């Protein structure tokens, strides 16, 4: 099992699926949906096989494969996964089938091509898997940029109002970040001895000049900060989140944005440790500002999708301070946060999408007392909201707590300020839930026939796995933390910051 080429097959499989689905004639939408769903389930099965085959106490990077590509530049198709990449890959594989199933009736067949939409989703899955599986900086960059194209067309062609504006803004923001990274990638290639292999570059990184390393760090960091997004590079996300179809938005904030934080952990910290320490205060301040600022904005939103987008930015602030606190606890918390946030916010977006699909509007003021009409769906929204505000018992609680504790040991002030974010999170989630599903029934709602239809079987199948996972990881995060911990420890060693008590989580106790 260990030698099975999991990563290359996992990357290629959705691409083949996308090609198959793209060639289905426009009239046969149902066939396209079914094939896409089955295909994504096959990918899920394969990723679970990979999870089983991953040896927790084995090498840091496993499933390594390497094939020649452009020998002149020493760019190769090199794939390898550490614990961090592994959990992200499985998260993608879990979310994509849910998103496909949730999108079942989202595309208006009369106006838009259904097969194209599902082909784009599978193509997006291919690039997302590739970006996490790549262990060659050139290959990583290629996936990083190409990822924009399917998402651009999903937002631009299948989105709601102002979709053109949002699609272009999304593309340009990411492209600008990406081009900074391109300059840094070329620079890294030159100073790193004309190689793109991550391991070789890491060996060469000890000899980088301080200033060069700082500039290169900055190039990578800007790209990742735009992608994540961190304050002040975040303004594209609310627009894209609102304009994208809700299931695609779930994928956008659930996975796509994690590329930013993943990139920081995989590239910024190990390759430029000195620069990472030097820039850490800036990153911490940006993270804390993001937590408070985005949470305040979220409180004031009247558009459900925009609200969820802002909560996401606040959560990325938490992930950011967890990474730059440079403790294993905070780092593990951050990676766990990436997974949990993908599940919780993904669920939240999907449920909001179900509400929006019924009501035909995403404005909070268009709802009110919806729980009386669709009690179960309202319950799911409430649960997703609670998970999103990190209620104990749900998975995000563990990660948020780890981040705060880990940060507190090294940066007390930041941790204390960030804690305010928790209170604000309770405010925006509970107030949103209250205004939409509780209270007196909005008479306009009863006139919408679709609002009388509670959660369907299809929607139950979409949300059930995510709800279960959130509960399961809330009570028993050990399987995930066991995988993450060694990788995070290794990353922290790369940065040159080790802490004496890395096993606190593995023993099942959260605090030291």
């Amino acid at each position, binding site marked *: 099992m260990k030698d099975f080429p999991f990563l290359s097959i996992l990357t290629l499989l959705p691409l083949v699926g996308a090609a198959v689905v793209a060639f289905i004639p426009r009239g046969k939408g149902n066939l396209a949906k079914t094939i896409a769903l089955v295909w994504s389930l096959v990918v899920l099965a394969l990723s679970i096989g990979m999870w089983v085959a991953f040896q927790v106490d084995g090498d840091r990077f496993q499933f390594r494969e390497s094939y020649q*590509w*452009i*020998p*002149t*530049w020493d760019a190769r198709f090199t794939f390898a996964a550490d614990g961090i990449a592994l959990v992200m890959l499985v998260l993608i594989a879990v979310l994509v089938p849910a998103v496909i199933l949730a999108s079942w009736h989202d595309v208006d067949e009369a106006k838009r091509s259904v097969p194209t939409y599902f082909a784009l989703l599978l193509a997006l899955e291919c690039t997302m898997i590739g970006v996490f599986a790549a262990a060659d900086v050139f290959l990583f*960059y*290629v996936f990083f*940029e*190409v990822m*924009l*194209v399917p998402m651009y*067309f999903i937002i*631009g*062609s299948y989105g709601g109002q102002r*979709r*053109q504006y949002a*699609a*272009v803004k999304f*593309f*340009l923001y990411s*492209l*600008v970040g990406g*081009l*900074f990274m*391109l*300059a840094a990638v*070329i*620079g890294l*290639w*030159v100073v790193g001895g004309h190689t793109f292999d991550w391991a070789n570059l890491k060996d060469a990184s000890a000899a980088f000049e301080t200033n060069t390393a700082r500039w290169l760090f900055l190039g990578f960091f800007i790209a990742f900060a735009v992608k994540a997004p961190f304050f002040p590079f975040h303004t594209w996300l609310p627009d894209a989140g609102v304009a994208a179809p809700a299931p695609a938005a779930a994928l956008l904030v659930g996975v796509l944005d994690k590329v930013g934080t993943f990139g920081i952990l995989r590239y910024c910290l190990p390759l430029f440790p000195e620069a990472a320490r030097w820039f850490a205060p800036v990153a911490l301040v940006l993270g804390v500002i993001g937590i408070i600022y985005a949470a305040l904005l979220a409180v004031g939103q009247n558009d459900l999708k925009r609200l969820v987008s802002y909560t996401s930015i606040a959560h990325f602030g938490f992930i950011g301070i967890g990474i730059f606190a440079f403790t294993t606890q905070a780092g593990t918390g951050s990676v766990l946060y990436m997974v949990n946030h993908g599940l919780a916010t993904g669920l939240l977006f999907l449920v909001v999408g179900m509400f929006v699909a019924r009501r035909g509007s995403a404005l909070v003021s268009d709802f009110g007392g919806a729980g009386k009409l669709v009690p179960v769906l309202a319950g799911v929204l409430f649960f997703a909201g609670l998970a999103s505000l990190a209620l104990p018992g749900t998975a995000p609680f563990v990660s948020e707590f780890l981040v705060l504790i880990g940060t507190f040991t090294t940066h007390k002030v930041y941790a204390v300020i960030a804690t305010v974010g928790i209170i604000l999170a309770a405010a925006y989630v509970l107030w949103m839930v209250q205004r939409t599903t509780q209270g007196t029934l909005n008479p306009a709602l009863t006139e919408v026939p679709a609002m009388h239809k509670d959660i369907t079987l299809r929607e139950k199948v979409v949300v059930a796995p995510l709800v279960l996972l959130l509960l399961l990881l809330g009570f028993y995060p050990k399987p995930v933390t066991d995988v993450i911990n060694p990788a995070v420890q290794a990353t922290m060693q790369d940065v040159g910051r080790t802490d004496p008590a890395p096993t606190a989580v593995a023993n099942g106790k959260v605090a030291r």
Partner: protein
Amino acid sequence: MGDLKLPDIDYGALAPMLILFGAACLGVLLEAVVPKARRYAIQLGLALVALVAALVTVIVERNTRIVTIGGAVAVDGPTLFLQGSILLLGVVSLLLIGERSIEAGGAFVSQAAITVGSQKDLRQASGQPGGTEVYPLTMFALGGMLLFVAANDLLTMFVALEVFSLPLYLLCALARRRRLLSQEAALKYFLLGSYASAFFLFGVALLYGFSGAVDLASIHAAVADPARSEVLLFAGLALVAIGLLFKSAAAPFHVWTPDVYQGAPTPITALMAACTKVAAFGALLRVLYVAFDGVRWDFQLVLGVIAVLTMLVGAVLAVTQTDMKRLLAYSSIANAGYLLVGVLALNKDGLSSTMFYLVAYGFSVLAAFGIVSLVRDAEGEATHLSRWAGLGRKSPLFAGVFSFILLAFAGIPLTSGFTSKFAVFGAAIDGGQTWLVIFGVITSMLLAFPYLRVIVMMWLQEPGESTPAVSIPGFLTSAALAIGVIATFALGVIPAPLLDLTNDAAQFVR
């Protein structure tokens, strides 16, 4: 007086040029003797056969490294590579030039001498077959370009410059539709081009005064001699460079580009954007790398400023364009800037990456103009951007192909636009020109916007009533488009073979 000794001539090495010039002369002769109805097939066939034959001789001579006919022509790696590129791109351009099914009679006027707006003009516009003198003219232009990249002394280079420029001036004036615009473009190109040629020639004279010779090796030797006049050297270098930068469409010598690209018949625009660029940069590379590498520290900064200016002008002005051909013209100016970044690396990678870029860009730009020639209404080509709105709904295949080409121009990975930018930027950082790369990256961001705007218009806007239909391309245009798109994709995904080829070729003889 001793015996006059004739220089040795390696006819094999000169064969590609001789074939094209021979075919051009034969083509002129055929114009006189072949009946009008049969000229098209014969001329097009002759031109294609000549190009393919020349390409074959280039491949046969691939290992030749020689300076021949008395030092006038150098046939070495870069020469052969660039000649091969010009011939390949020339074949594709010729396919576009020869297309006659999109518009009855083709893109060219039937008789250039017909007065614009007269009864005769209306008759010719309604479908009389286009003039066939374009084929010999194209052969002369391509032959001149082959000589231009091979010229080893500045006088030969000047002759080659004129040989390929004069037919191009004429070709620009031969559009079937919008003839005044076309003639205006030709006149502008001719006047400004003449100035540039004069500058070049004046520079050659000054350099002759400086070194006592016109061949590049002697100039190289003279540059190393500190006793000679630096004023003559730098003035001569500057004037020669102006002549070459004019042809490369580098700012501030770019002003002709948008007008000429817009006014010229689209196949000729494609020819200029692809082949002229190869020729101009080929000559620039040879002059800078062979003759003047001794004063590289002196010109690197000046040309660096020009490169930055070119990138900025191209990118910023591309944002404001509303006409597709002008947009592509400014994009071509910006690309000249990226090419200059590669040139200024002044190392072996700089040479090889610039050559790679020229080929990659050439194929993409040919495909782009090929598509422009397809989007048309009753008046001819519909080049105004607003007319392209909603094209993706009406003709998804062509809008898809064009989007792919635009993404390539924007430098998105898996297209040749990305690999070629990567190659020149990498060479430039290796050559210590990081600042040029930073400007290159910034302008790439700016330039992404106009491309993206076109994609948005085509796909995300509803088609209006005035959205023209995309003509079904004939066999020739289809072939040209397919070659351009496949090359753009292949060079983006598997660039290794061509990169190896450019690396092997990247060595000038002196």
